[in-house]
């Protein structure tokens, strides 16, 4: 097991010129068989493996990743964490996740830099205001913190925002979740990987899954670039490629994979100490600890697996950002990238069983999966270990599209798609 991180280990290693830090996790060759194989080494998959080992005592687990850990959407999002979803089912799931976030750095012994700096959603018209007050009241009834702010309160909270009336996007109000904020995305992947590895989980990178061995409707194992791995249970947590995996396993999913893009500016001195979201004009923005402005844009409309976004989507987003924050107009953007998000028709995830026995899927997080990383892994681990969904994710079954009990969160997802 790797050494525990602490002020003492820091001092000890400083004296040794930081040359003796142990690797944070092993890179083992796969064993022939495991109790559980998790496909997908993003935050959700790593969290699943960690909670399987930690909470449920399932330690004979392999996690298989096509590329490198956190190289997909985990490393491509805008790191926003909040739990103010409209419906009870979603609110419970995201709030469970929020509670795990609040103790995550201590739990993992890894600083995930979770910063509860508040997430403020803006209302630009009367309809936004009404929808926001409905959602805010629903949140408060459900025990989730939410405050409605007037324009004067918003000006005091975010002084650099242009709140003069008459602009292209007038701000009539906002909903603030003070417990919301950001976390360091890579640290989340690395922290879960290190903690899962310490509990015995084998993390196998650079090993794409090429097929599943299924016999009599029951999964037998996974074909990978590093050979066949036998498994009693298989959990698929691959976000944008969920449809590809489902196709290999012989079933279909109600998801579409679309590129969602983000950008960062050159680093500047601290100007923005919270997260601002605007669903209506589709822009969201925060400032990283390095000083870069992290800006999230909308999803491209079409199915796409190329990890890049269309130019007109960035133009729309940056236009709105410059309108709300005129002082950002002369900033240069350093990087722009895209991640492939798997969007469900109701903008809620699918976490549960598949038509293949012993195979479970966790997908459809769409544009907002990062915030759910701990909770998603936690409920998926419970689902895999007990062979049935936990109360928190029972409503998020694949079957809900047949029964009609869909969980429409297009409003709370806050992303134009």
């Amino acid at each position, binding site marked *: 097991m790797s050494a525990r991180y602490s002020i003492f280990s820091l001092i000890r290693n400083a004296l040794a010129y930081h040359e003796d830090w142990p690797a944070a996790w092993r890179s083992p060759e796969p064993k022939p068989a495991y109790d559980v194989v998790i496909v997908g080494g993003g935050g959700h998959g790593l969290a699943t493996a960690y909670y399987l080992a930690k909470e449920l005592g399932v330690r004979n687990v392999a996690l298989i990743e096509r590329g490198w850990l956190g190289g997909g959407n985990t490393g491509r999002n805008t790191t926003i964490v909040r739990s103010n979803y409209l419906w009870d089912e979603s609110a419970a799931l995201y709030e469970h996740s929020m509670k795990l976030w609040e103790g995550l750095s201590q739990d993992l012994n890894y600083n995930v830099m979770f910063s509860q700096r508040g997430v403020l959603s803006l209302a630009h018209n009367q309809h936004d205001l009404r929808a926001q007050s409905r959602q805010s009241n629903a949140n408060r009834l459900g025990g989730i913190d939410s405050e409605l702010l007037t324009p004067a309160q918003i000006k005091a909270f975010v002084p650099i925002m242009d709140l003069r009336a008459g602009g292209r996007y007038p701000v009539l109000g906002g909903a603030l979740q003070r417990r919301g904020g950001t976390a360091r995305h890579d640290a989340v992947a690395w922290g879960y990987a290190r903690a899962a590895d310490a509990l015995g989980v084998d993390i196998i990178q650079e090993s794409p899954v090429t097929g599943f061995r299924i016999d009599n409707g029951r999964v037998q194992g996974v074909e990978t670039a590093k050979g066949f791995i036998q498994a009693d249970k298989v959990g698929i947590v691959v976000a944008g490629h969920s449809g590809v995996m489902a196709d290999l396993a012989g079933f279909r999913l109600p998801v579409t994979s679309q590129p969602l893009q983000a950008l960062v500016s050159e680093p500047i001195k601290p100007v923005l100490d919270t997260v601002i979201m605007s669903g209506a004009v589709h822009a969201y923005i925060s400032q990283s600890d390095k000083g870069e402005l992290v800006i999230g844009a909308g999803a491209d409309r079409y199915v796409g*697996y190329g990890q890049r976004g269309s130019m007109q989507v960035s133009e729309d987003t940056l236009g709105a950002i410059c309108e709300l924050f005129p002082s950002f107009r002369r900033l240069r953007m350093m990087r722009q990238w895209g991640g492939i998000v798997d969007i469900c028709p109701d903008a809620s995830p699918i976490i549960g069983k598949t038509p293949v026995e012993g195979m479970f899927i966790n997908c459809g997080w769409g544009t907002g999966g990062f915030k759910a990383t701990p909770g998603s892994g936690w409920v998926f681990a419970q689902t895999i270990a007990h062979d049935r969904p936990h109360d928190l994710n029972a409503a998020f079954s694949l079957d809900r599209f*047949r029964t009609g009990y869909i969980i429409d969160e297009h409003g709370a997802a806050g992303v134009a798609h």
Partner: protein
Amino acid sequence: MLLIPCPYCGERAESEFSYGGEAHIARPADPEKTSDADWADYLYTRTNTKGVYFERWMHAHGCRRWFNIARHTVSYDILAVYETGAPPPKFDTKSEV
């Protein structure tokens, strides 16, 4: 941004078009007799191919006519354009870029 060849107006920027999703999805002929599973499949399930995808587009800021294209969803190359109602052209839909 995609450069989309409208069969009626020629090549135009993607921002002139609206997207209609997967093509060739037929509404069940007799909804009364369609099972819930088949109805859900019609409403929600999409092929979501990584490879050549057949999809509908509409030239919203132009001729306002619908048409189909075959596009590779990794390279975004547009491989064929054809009229609504015509059968899809033959492609290996799971081909690499």
